[in-house]
């Protein structure tokens, strides 16, 4: 009998506000410990939380982008538990009335199809501080800079059926929150992290199996590994006659396994109740429409336009549309070129992306601008340079800047397209290799590759390959 995996994700995205969700303390990453933790964040008696308007706007922006319902009225609740990095003894979150509910996000599946993942809810809450357990002689050190940082918790339905689908969904969320400018998406710094609810059931079964919740996964790879391990663990357990216990587990990347958190760390009995310090948040239609009006073209819309308008394949469009910045670069390039979308796409997701990656540069800081690259691609399009020559020119553009035409001229990288000159070289090559020429005439057409190689060698790679092929066929 086979098993089906069922996964739902809870993604925590730190919202890119300047100040905290309920206080005016800064949210900058990497500040000295406790220098960005004010009276409100520290839970001093007598302080009152005041909600950050920008955090609300960002949550609504996300909600609209996933075609969700925006709650006209939402309520903050206290989630009660004790931990030293939570000074108040409760986390302010939303429970019964979240700000966003019932949206959807489409992901691509391994077979090239699409799948709609239900977004059950997205609610606003505050982050906790950080506990450090090393080097304090049996004590723990607490840094409360992160306490009160706004989070949007995005909860999917149990719609994902494999680790790969879960990773793809997280990638789409990651892309979207960056696209919307509401989260920097830096997973190493913890700006985006997720919990995975994982269960298995017999194929064909409708009821959900008992799930385990794997906490705090902060990379795509860890999410993948943790789910693969957990699914295997649960299947082994069930097949040997055991049962899965509903519990919270942690993934240990060093040992590549998940294990149960001890009861002490676990507190499922949160005793939520509405926070009396905060009034209900009411949003009217005018407000919601003003946020909608400010939405950019969304990734899915942009990709559809790229395949339609530019005739690109779905993969190319998806790769180009990975970030808004890259999509904008591509469009600037095509505009400058006045067409040649396919060529432009190949260069943006090929040579440019590889170079940015290799040098650790973001596209915003690219040393070869769309205008510079357009001048180079124009010379590929008109046959002046071959693809491999263009790569040499690109390298010079990247390292030294300047203009493609000037570089082509200065370095003699012009392709030999002069038919007479090429014909002369080809005659020489054929004369020097009579045996292979005879083989070709006897039907061994594979030696064509040999001749192309010889001509390229003789011209220092400057011959136009298409033209060489054509001339060789005529002359042989």
């Amino acid at each position, binding site marked *: 009998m086979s098993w089906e995996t069922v996964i739902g994700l809870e993604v925590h995205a730190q919202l890119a506000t300047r100040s905290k969700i309920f206080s*005016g303390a800064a949210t900058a990453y990497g500040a000295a410990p*406790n220098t960005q933790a004010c009276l409100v964040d520290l839970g001093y008696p007598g302080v009152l939380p*005041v909600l950050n308007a*920008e955090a609300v706007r960002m949550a609504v922006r996300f909600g609209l982008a996933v075609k969700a319902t925006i709650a006209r009225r939402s*309520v903050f609740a206290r989630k009660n538990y004790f931990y030293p990095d939570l000074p108040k003894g409760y986390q302010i979150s939303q429970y019964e009335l979240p700000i966003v509910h019932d949206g959807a996000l489409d992901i691509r599946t391994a077979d090239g199809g699409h799948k709609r993942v239900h977004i059950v809810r997205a609610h606003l809450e505050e982050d906790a501080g950080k506990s450090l357990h090393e080097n304090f002689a049996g*004590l723990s*050190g607490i840094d409360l800079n992160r306490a009160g940082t706004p989070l949007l918790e995005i909860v999917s339905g149990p719609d994902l059926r494999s680790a790969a689908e879960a990773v793809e969904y997280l990638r789409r969320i990651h892309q979207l929150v960056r696209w919307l400018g509401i989260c920097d998406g830096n997973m190493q710094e913890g700006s985006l992290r997720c919990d995975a609810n994982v269960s298995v059931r017999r194929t064909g079964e409708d009821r959900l199996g008992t799930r385990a919740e794997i906490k705090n996964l902060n990379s795509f790879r860890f999410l993948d590994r943790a789910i693969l391990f957990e699914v295997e663990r649960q299947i082994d357990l069930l097949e040997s006659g055991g049962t899965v216990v509903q519990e919270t587990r942690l993934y240990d990347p060093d040992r590549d396994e998940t294990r149960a958190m001890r009861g002490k760390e676990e507190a499922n009995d949160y005793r939520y109740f509405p926070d009396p310090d905060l009034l*209900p948040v009411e949003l009217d239609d005018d407000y919601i429409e003003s946020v909608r009006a400010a939405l950019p073209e969304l990734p899915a819309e942009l990709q559809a336009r790229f395949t339609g308008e530019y005739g690109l394949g779905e993969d190319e469009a998806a790769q180009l549309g990975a970030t808004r910045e890259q999509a904008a670069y591509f469009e600037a390039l095509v505009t400058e070129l006045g067409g040649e979308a396919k060529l432009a796409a190949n260069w943006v997701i090929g040579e440019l992306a590889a170079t940015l990656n290799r040098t650790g540069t973001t596209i915003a800081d690219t040393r070869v601008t769309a205008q510079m690259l357009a001048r180079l691609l124009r010379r590929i399009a008109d046959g002046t340079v071959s693809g491999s020559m263009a790569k040499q020119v690109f390298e010079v553009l990247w390292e030294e800047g300047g203009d493609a035409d000037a570089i082509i001229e200065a370095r003699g990288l012009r392709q030999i397209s002069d038919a007479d000159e090429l014909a002369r070289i080809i005659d020489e090559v054929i004369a020097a290799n009579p045996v292979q020429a005879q083989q070709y005439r006897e039907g061994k057409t594979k030696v064509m590759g040999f001749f192309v190689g010889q001509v390229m060698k003789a011209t220092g790679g400057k011959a136009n390959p298409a033209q060489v092929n054509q001339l060789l066929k005529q002359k042989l």
Partner: protein
Amino acid sequence: MTLDRQAVEQLAHLARLRLDDDELLDVIAKLSGIVEFVDQLARVETGGVLPLAHPLEMTQRLRPDEVTETDGRDRLQQNADQVSDGLYLVPRVIE
């Protein structure tokens, strides 16, 4: 409704309170009294009434996203029992 011993022990655990047997019996009686009082409220017909999130008929005021608080660590940490390198020190929470 009377709270049983197990429920009160669980509440005490969640509240991180250590109660001896005498205290526990005392708390069971007192909490049960409160629950009985609340049970009276539960008998009121509330079928068509929305849950009350807040007694004030007002909505939440929002503040602009501006940093208004400066570093007050040195002053604030004067209230702490133990600090080190800017961190608050607490009994170790994991072994």
